């Protein structure tokens, strides 16, 4: 097994998939010759040719819309949106088209499409390059939404997404692209879509995060253990939609407390759905309200401010303190 970063794991998954299945292709802005602005597809065009790794004109609706047509007609496209903030341009093609074609055609046509996009903050990008928009797609039946927090899941979830018969949005936390390495099997394997992962077991409080906030809650859990003796169960949601409610509920039934952490703004975020489901299904286990630690209800701020705007270890620890006091 090799030690890979998240971005290398993503690269590895795409390479493997393209080797194994001729129908797999990648299209997007700068994905070919340049290998992607983050080098996710470095060298893939040289290896698989311009027909399978395609530099497109600058148009997100067309990237997704043509990928829908490609998928319907027998290909297995991976469409890259250069930054998640630009996905609004493709909203109709995602939410009204890709998501609904199976339904619209009564199961006759399907859209085995993966849409990859980097997202998340903390790396001093220009405006609209750091927004977390996963919640928008939780509200669209027909889509699956996946986000890895480590190299192993990155590869396994991406391969699962490529195998999936339905459109999967694969959101990559760009802060974690090169943050650390971890062991990744060289062969094909999948991490099932729709299953959360218990990162650390615990008994006092459940911390729930995904993508970029997983290292934050894991770190908070460690410090809370060391500094306060609290036993935190840490859950990496991995799939935003369809959500693994059973895993969340099982944990909260044990701990009685939950803190959910995301970078996206508070209102209407995925945290609201997590909180709503917990109180629906584990009401009598709850000893304190589910607390949300999230971005504030403002646009994502400029680089000089983002660090104090984003949820961090200290805010998570403070939230745990708060819920433990109840």
């Amino acid at each position, binding site marked *: 097994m090799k030690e890979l970063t998240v971005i290398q794991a993503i690269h590895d998954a795409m390479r493997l998939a393209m080797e194994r299945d001729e129908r797999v*292709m990648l299209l997007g802005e700068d994905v070919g010759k340049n290998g992607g602005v983050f080098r996710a597809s470095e060298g893939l065009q040289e290896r698989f040719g311009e*027909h399978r790794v*395609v530099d*497109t*004109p600058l*148009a997100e*609706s*067309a990237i*997704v*819309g*043509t*990928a*829908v*047509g*490609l*998928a*319907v*007609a*027998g*290909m297995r*496209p991976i469409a890259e949106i250069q930054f998640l903030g630009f996905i609004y341009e493709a909203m*109709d*093609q995602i939410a*009204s*088209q890709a998501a609904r*074609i*199976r*339904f*619209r*055609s*009564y*199961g*006759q*046509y*399907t859209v085995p499409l993966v849409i990859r996009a980097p997202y998340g903050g903390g790396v001093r990008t220009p405006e609209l390059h750091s927004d977390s928009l996963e919640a928008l797609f939780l509200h669209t*039946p*027909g889509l*699956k939404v996946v986000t890895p927090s480590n190299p192993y899941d990155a590869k396994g979830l991406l391969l699962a997404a490529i195998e*999936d*018969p*339905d459109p999967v949005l694969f959101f990559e936390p760009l802060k974690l692209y090169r943050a650390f390495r971890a062991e990744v099997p060289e062969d094909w394997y999948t991490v099932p879509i*729709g299953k959360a992962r218990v990162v650390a077991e615990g008994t006092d409080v459940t911390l729930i995060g995904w993508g970029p906030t997983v290292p934050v809650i894991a770190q908070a859990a460690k410090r809370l253990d060391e500094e306060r003796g609290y036993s935190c169960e840490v859950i990496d949601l991995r799939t935003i939609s*369809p*959500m693994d*409610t*059973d895993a969340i509920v099982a944990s909260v039934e044990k701990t009685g407390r939950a803190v959910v952490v995301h970078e996206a703004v508070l209102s209407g975020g995925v945290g609201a759905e997590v909180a709503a489901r917990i109180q629906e299904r584990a009401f009598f286990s709850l000893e304190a309200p589910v607390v949300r630690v999230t971005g504030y209800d403002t646009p994502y701020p400029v680089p000089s401010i983002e660090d104090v705007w984003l949820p961090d270890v200290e805010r998570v620890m403070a939230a745990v303190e708060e819920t433990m006091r109840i």
Partner: protein
Amino acid sequence: MKTYAACEPVPVYRVLAEDGSLVGEAPDLSGERLVELYRWMVLTRIFDQRALNLQRQGRIGTYAPFSGQEAAQIGSFAALDPQDWVFTSYRELAGVMFHGFPMETALLYTMGHPEGTKSPADRRIFPVQIVIAAQLLHAVGAGWACRLRGERSIATAYFGDGATSQGDFHEAMNFAAVFRIPVVFFCQNNFWAISVPFTKQMATPTVAQKALAYGMEGVLVDGNDVLAVYAAMKRAVDRARAGEGPTLIEAVTYRLGPHTTADDPTRYRDEAEWRKWRDERDPIPRFRKFLETRGLWSEEEERHWQEEAKRRVEEAVVRAESYPKPNPASVFDHVYGTVPPDLARQKAAFERRMNRREGRE
């Protein structure tokens, strides 16, 4: 300073004059095939009128009539192979039915039945697109897939004059040109987008010239001349199949009816304009005159076919109306390939509720 100001106009391609006389080169079609096209024009016109009628009786839902546009649709679909991909809006039923989409399925759609979008298994007809211009990108993608998979098939996208204003139209045209996709963009310019006239939709005299912005070929054809339409489409389809890239066709036609059954065109449309198109430019009498001159059609055949067509439409109505009612719980079955756990719970709760309801009723 020399500028790009206006482009040299290209004449409207026409084979038949409005009185049905030959003014251009007739395409290479057998007499039998010509009669078949005519029969379908008549049949679909009858279908359309009957559907309007059914809607008024409350037997089907909102319906978008295509009367007046039969030549544009049937003439162009006549140039397709069964395995070509077809992506249409809501107003291409004449063409789609001619291409093999059953009349009763079309009726099921307007009845709000979930099976009303299903293409026959040996055709590649995509469900009706409601979002204006979204289907153009799907056609580009499907045409692209055909080429990548080494298929002979090509893709077609049908849309209206209004659709040309959407960003997706532009992006589809550009992608198609850049990647030389085997696709034909077929615009039925019927002069109206609901109440918005062509002259408020764009500042150009034609849709066809927009091809110049993409490095694509643009064709302007009389959409009420079934032979001209066939010839233009055939040429574009052949070019696409031969790897010569996409074509934009503008078929100039007219919607004789309302936008949909929910629309009242007298609010915005000049009666004289409408009357002119109805009385002088209807594609059906025009083609009939041509066939009659050639001895391919007669008064008697007409009478006979009118009856036969009505009978076929009635049969379709009967089949549609006696089609099994949908199972409401099927709504959960085609969201994903496999129903996820929480959705399965919703489905179970829904079914319990439905059962309770039935118990009560």
